[in-house]
């Protein structure tokens, strides 16, 4: 159904310059400690003003694969997702305490620049938000500001590759100069995924990426997530139990700001240990 061009994956990617020194270190470490998780959260609390929205979350997220965050509305899934790329920093009232280790380094340490971090941890929002620019410029924006391409040909290659990985290339290759906002909702969502991929991140965060899409566009998106999980660490927030079951390997269930249960997706859906998890799953899927 989708034509993902995977043969040439490694070769153009090698041309990308690593963003910051940290990546090199982490790659080296990967060889020695292969099982180290991508993220380790220790007692993460998020406050909005005086209101504590997340109460001490401890969790480990694997290097590759899909981790789903589920739970009733207002339980703090989006808030927790924004912990990973420090987007909570952009909310004036929000405050994060605790430790979040990415490849063993605390991303909330003083010397860490959140701007650099966000180049390594991409994000896809609930409502597709392409820039009011051309399709090409949407994808090229990240590589441009990070100086990932030195020539126009290189930039073209990055754009093409990113759109291919996002499964959008065949649909838009003849109209790269058209506005990105002129695409359909599902195409827009894949465009912003391509935009995120173009920066060469290690992690992709997705906040209910399919909630504004119809079933066919959703199926395409899920297929894409399935492809991407081989290479990226993906954390996805979803309200659809079925979607969580289909795309994720690990599932975390949140309730009222607490992490209630975190396990293999299989286990969560077939054999939940906590009553609240069971109620939520059965209530929703019922």
């Amino acid at each position, binding site marked *: 159904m989708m034509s993902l061009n995977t043969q040439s994956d490694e070769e153009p990617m090698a041309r990308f310059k690593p*963003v910051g020194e940290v990546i090199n270190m982490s790659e080296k470490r990967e060889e020695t400690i292969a099982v180290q998780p991508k993220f380790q959260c220790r007692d993460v609390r998020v406050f909005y003003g005086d209101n504590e929205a997340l109460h001490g979350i401890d969790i480990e997220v694997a290097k590759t694969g899909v981790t789903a965050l589920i739970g009733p509305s207002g339980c703090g899934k989006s808030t927790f997702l924004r912990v990973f*790329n420090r*987007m909570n920093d*952009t909310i*004036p009232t929000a405050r994060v305490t605790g430790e979040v280790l990415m490849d063993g380094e605390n991303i909330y340490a003083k010397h860490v620049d959140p*701007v*650099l*971090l*966000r*180049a*390594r941890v*991409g*994000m896809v*929002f609930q*409502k597709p*938000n*392409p*820039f*009011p620019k051309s399709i090409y410029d949407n994808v090229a*924006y*990240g590589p441009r*500001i*990070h100086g990932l391409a030195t020539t126009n040909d290189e930039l073209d290659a990055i754009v093409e590759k990113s759109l291919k990985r996002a499964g959008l290339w065949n649909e838009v290759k003849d109209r790269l100069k058209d*506005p*990105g*906002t*002129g695409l359909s909702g599902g195409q827009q969502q894949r465009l*912003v995924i391509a*935009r*995120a991929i173009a*920066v060469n991140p290690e992690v992709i965060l997705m906040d209910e990426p399919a909630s504004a899409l119809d079933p066919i566009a959703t199926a395409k998106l899920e297929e894409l997530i399935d492809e991407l999980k081989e290479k990226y660490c993906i954390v996805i927030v979803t309200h659809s139990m079925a979607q969580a079951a289909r795309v994720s390997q690990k599932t975390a269930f949140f309730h009222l700001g607490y992490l209630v249960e975190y396990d293999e997706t299989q286990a969560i859906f077939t054999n939940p240990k906590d009553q609240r998890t069971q109620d939520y799953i059965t209530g929703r899927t019922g």
Partner: protein
Amino acid sequence: MSQSTSAASVHNSDQALKRLKARKSAESRFRFFGIGAIFAAVLMLGWLLNSIVGTGYTAFYQHYMTIDVELTESIVDPDGVRDPDELRKANFRKIMQEAIYARFPEVTDRKEKIALFKVISASGATDQARQMVYQNPSLVGETLTLSVPTSDDVDQLLKGYIDRNAPEARRKVTDQQIAWVDALKATGEIKSKFNWTFFTATDSRDPELAGIAGAVVGSLMALFVAFVVSVPVGVGAAVYLEEFAPQNRFTDFVEININNLAAVPSIVFGLLGLAVFLNFFGMPRSAPLVGGLVLALMTLPTIIIATRSALRAVSPSIVDGALSLGASHTQAVFHHKVPLAAPGILTGSIIGIAQALGETAPLLMIGMVAFVTEIPSTLTEPASALPVQIFLWSDSAERAWAERTSAAIIVLLTVLITMNAVAIFLRNKLERRW
């Protein structure tokens, strides 16, 4: 409770129908008031325009008399040296008098001769002859056919503003003058022409020679200064306040003051300009430079407020998208927010500047109210401004001035409407269609 057993009965009962009727009549009342308000506004606007255009349109044409003028050497150049500077001082008034007496040889009485000379614009006609001879001394001795402006009274008479049936003593033109003018009109020697003078001349003591060119140039210079100063400063201040300024008491204080400044009467800005630019910095009085700076001060709050609201109207999801790609806050603002807000910023700036164009009071305070008979060529020369010119002319009671006042208002309004139209056009054009 008792009657709400079935849902249908609640919405079909008499009371429900009454409520529906009341709601409908309330809605139609509101619509009626709305239409009434718009009608009243359009009516008043129409009235205003009608009265201005009705009084003003006649100033766009003027009556000229074609007359043969003999440049008698004995009067113009008695020494016969043809020195242009000497020629300029010659008695051209006499030349013009002789010319018109020659046209009516039957007039011999001294008083009648004076009345006859009053048919043409004395200074208009003499200046014209003087200029021609100054530029081309070889004309001395020749007979020229000139088209000279008639006096403002004759012009008004021919435009129908002087009642011919009124008793002679209460009229500005005598019966005799009327007879001469009618005769000249019948032979085609007096004709009405488009009044180019109004657009090319500067202010004058004589209405038939007065124009708005000086005031327009003064206004344009002041606006240029105002634009160059207020747009960069205003947009810069707004972007900083909106995006980068820390939220604290000081910035709150600045914000409140900016909002208050927008409501400060313009004459206060004039006083400020007088105190700061003239008295403290010692800049020249009546100069478009100072006028522009004062107008810039006045426009700043408008531009800042418009820019901030344009920035606020940009969807935060766009900024979030940029930030999530690793753009810094500054990059997100300048790559995405400001370009998306640009149409709104531009519209706000143009409307602010257009308002400044119509301001009179602050310019009065810094002396741009002088009687200036030269078109300014630098920013520091004394100049007038269009609204000030209107203010000055509106002071004179004569009919010819009233006409020119309205004509100048028409020009001012045309410029304002054009500027606003440009603002709307630019906004529609620049606004991303996607």
